[in-house]
């Protein structure tokens, strides 16, 4: 049961990161530096779920999720506060009335609460042996998509920012010199 919930949680993280890519590639909404850091926050949090899938549930893996989500929430909150005063603008297009950084903060908060709920189940830590090294279909799929998205973010960030820092308001891929059509 715990493994299923961890796999579903990792698929939820995968979905968020894939949607961010769709927004970037399909709607040409290039991510700002804080947006990129929030993506890394999702990956830092999802890393704990991936560890649970590989090694079995451990409190330290849930700690990884909480710390990653807390770091991501801090970054999302910073961006919310940058635009919270009326007239200070916003970044990107709103989705269902909220900007992506606001959604990111909500999701990070939900991850922390969800992880706390998962931690309430003590029986998951009572297994004397680690789980089988063979991952079943759903956890394997979640892990594989997560790995692909992480590698995708490496490539995307390199294309967008090159080897240095990203521009505050990116309008083109630095390595391309132009926004793709």
């Amino acid at each position: 049961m715990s493994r299923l919930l961890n796999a579903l949680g990792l698929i939820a993280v995968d979905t968020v990161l894939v949607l961010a890519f769709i927004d970037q590639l399909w709607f040409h909404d290039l991510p700002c530096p804080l947006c990129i850091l929030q993506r890394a926050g999702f990956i830092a949090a999802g890393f704990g779920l991936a560890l649970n899938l590989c090694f079995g549930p451990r409190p330290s893996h849930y700690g990884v999720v909480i710390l990653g989500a807390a770091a991501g929430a801090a970054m999302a909150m910073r961006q919310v506060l940058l635009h919270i005063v009326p007239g200070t603008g916003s970044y990107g297009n709103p989705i269902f009335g909220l900007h992506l950084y606001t959604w990111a903060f909500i999701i990070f908060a939900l991850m922390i609460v969800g992880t706390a709920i998962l931690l309430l189940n003590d029986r998951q830590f009572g297994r004397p042996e680690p789980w089988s090294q063979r991952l079943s279909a759903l956890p394997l799929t979640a892990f594989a998509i997560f790995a692909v998205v992480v590698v995708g973010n490496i490539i995307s960030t390199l294309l967008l920012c090159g080897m240095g820092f990203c521009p505050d308001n990116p309008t083109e891929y630095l390595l391309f010199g132009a926004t793709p059509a």
Partner: protein
Amino acid sequence: MMSLPFLLFACGLGAAWLRQRGAAMGFWVAGLVTLLVLFRLHISDVLNIAL
């Protein structure tokens, strides 16, 4: 520079896949520290939230 946290997390995932838990956790810690350093470097502006 900005892709460094992703790179470290990717290395951590590779280590986890190879059943190297200690290395995976090490890469994750390095990635998180890098992430926080990059975050600190990007919050040079003072927030304008005075009412």
